[in-house]
């Protein structure tokens, strides 16, 4: 009776074994070189470089208008880049029209052809390749089974649910065995329950087929659960590229930190930096924190220190152990979510710190109440130093 769910490493690791992006000898499968797209005065995509490796499930994440869709449409061939090149598997596809690219796309609206049956929809790409009829029939059958829709082959799209339409769109895009599958907000149109299910199916499918997926989404949760790596995009540029845990635990700046869940931010001054070990001093309280930071920072320069709410321990008794940052405060607000509770604690220095605590004890009463005096503590190494 232990962990019922959640072990996803085996699923997502999949076709993309290991961490090719850390290996300088690995050839990127998709290579985007200083790609720029301008619409009149507006620069939608600004001089982007990107390497995506074979078998990755790469997610481009950003708010609306950040240029992620434009980037995807340039990969598919629907927008012509103003500058830069796109290579897939060593082949320069920048000047290829969409119908010649070894790339297929699943559209946000699914774009299932309303006047064709499910079967005809899925077969469309193969028919354009002028494959023999038997081959087409065989592969359509396989595809229908893969997406678990064999009994709906003769239906028209209007008779399908949103989830079923999505599978048709997926099957239609996959049947051509593309080198890269582009997915535009693949889960946005589904309801919450279906999303979770589809999410895992997508990952399974990707694992099975070994096709490189590039997903565009505005939903950070979707990105976190799906991706091998996430590129956070803002105003036409990438802010940070990394694995889900990297962007979550080691956000490069406030924007990224804030995009993925909540974070407590303190202004601070750098005391010293040596060989990635950094000491900073929080404004106001003068609390010193020792943690790690990859880049050289001059002593005396300003920075921010972030700490995720779930990294903070809350207790009535003073915590024990070394290497901890400890502060005292009063519970100002609390919200009970069943599995966890969120506390907003006013610290001695007058700051409000958010804490997310697992409710590992069973109790009908609240363990902590409003106006309770509490100690907050966190492992200093959990603190993130950010400079932007």
């Amino acid at each position, binding site marked *: 009776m232990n962990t019922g769910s959640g072990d996803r490493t085996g699923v997502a690791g999949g076709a993309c074994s290991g961490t090719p992006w850390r290996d300088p000898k690995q050839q990127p499968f998709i290579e985007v070189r200083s790609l720029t797209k301008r619409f009149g005065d507006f620069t939608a995509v600004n001089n982007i470089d990107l390497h995506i490796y074979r078998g990755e499930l790469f997610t481009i994440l950003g708010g609306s208008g950040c240029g992620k869709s434009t980037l995807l449409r340039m990969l*598919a*061939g*629907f927008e012509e880049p103003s500058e830069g090149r796109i290579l897939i598997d060593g082949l320069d596809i920048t000047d290829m*029209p*969409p*119908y*010649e690219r070894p*790339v*297929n*796309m699943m*559209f*946000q*609206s699914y*774009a299932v*052809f*309303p*006047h064709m049956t499910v079967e005809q929809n899925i077969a*469309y*790409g193969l028919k*354009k*390749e002028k494959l023999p009829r038997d081959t087409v029939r065989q592969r359509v059958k396989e595809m229908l089974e893969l997406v678990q829709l064999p009994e709906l082959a003769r239906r*028209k799209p*209007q008779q399908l649910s949103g989830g079923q339409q999505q599978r048709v*769109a997926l099957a*239609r*895009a996959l049947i*051509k065995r593309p080198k890269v599958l582009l997915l535009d907000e693949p889960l946005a149109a589904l309801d919450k329950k279906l999303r979770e299910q589809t999410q895992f199916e997508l990952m399974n499918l990707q694992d099975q087929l070994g096709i490189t997926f590039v997903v565009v989404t505005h939903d950070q949760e979707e990105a976190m659960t799906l991706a091998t790596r996430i590129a956070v995009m803002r105003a036409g540029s990438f802010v940070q590229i990394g694995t889900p845990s990297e962007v979550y635990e080691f956000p490069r700046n406030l924007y990224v930190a804030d995009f993925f869940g909540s974070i407590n931010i303190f202004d601070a001054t750098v005391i010293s930096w040596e060989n990635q070990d950094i000491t900073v001093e929080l404004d106001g309280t003068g609390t010193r924190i020792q943690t790690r930071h990859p880049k050289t920072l001059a002593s005396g320069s300003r920075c921010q220190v972030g700490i995720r709410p779930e990294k903070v321990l809350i207790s009535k008794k003073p915590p024990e152990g070394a290497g901890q940052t400890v502060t005292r405060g009063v519970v100002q607000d609390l919200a009970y979510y069943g599995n966890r509770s969120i506390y907003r604690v006013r610290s001695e220095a007058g700051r409000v710190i958010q804490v997310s605590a697992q409710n590992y004890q069973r109790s009908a009463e609240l363990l902590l109440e409003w106006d309770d005096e509490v100690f907050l503590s966190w492992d200093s190494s959990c603190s993130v130093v950010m400079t932007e």
Partner: protein
Amino acid sequence: MKRPSTFLYTVLSFGFAFLYVPIFVVMVYSFNDSRLATVWGGFSTRWYTALLKNQQILDAALLSLEIAVVSATLATLLGTLAGLALNRMGRYRGRTVFTGMIAAPLVMPEVITGLSLLLLFVSLKELIGWPDSRGANTITIAHITFSMAYVAVIVQSRLAAMDQSLEEAAMDLGGRPFAVARDITLPLIAPAMIAGWLLAFTLSLDDLVIASFTSGAGASTLPMVIFSKVKLGITPEVNALATIIIAIVTVGVLIAGWIVLRQRQHGSNRPEAGAPGD
């Protein structure tokens, strides 16, 4: 203000009476036995018999139908291309002029269109010897020209309502532009094209002024014959003809309306109103 006031419905009833009473009166009088068209002389179908024996009217009707079918078909072809050029081809040089040339015929007074086309035909004949005579050919060209604008507007509004990622998806799956148009776009705008064809057909069948200008000595379309008759006063045969036309149109519109309603119930496509002002 939840329910429209009695005032609004009074005006609505009055308006519809205004629109339909004259039509009903014509239909009733078409069965009038009296030669004096406005004096009731008992029920008779003699004007229908007379109509069917009137070779001039029959010939004109046939000519009008021929012109209408040919011009509607070509106008649908050109108008559909124009609709695509307006909505699916991105930017190109002279696009503004093009939109202008599509919108202008919708409101251009017929006398101007007719006069200008006639002068074109005359000048062309001077220059290149074509068209050597004016008649069905020149009327057809004239009708294509103004009705293709209507088709273009209907088709383009349908295209504007259509999800463009359908075509992108087809292209993504390996469809070349022409194949995409044939496999995806055309089947999906077919209802608009049919509506456009019907409108072009009706406009052609109905046109008097432009046909009068562009026709030569020999060819007289049905409206031209009707006009020459009614200019002299009320003609019972025209009443009969009007009744027949109204009956055909009503049946046609009812069938079309029924199809549109059925489609709407199936929830597949948004129906086209098919009206020029739309």
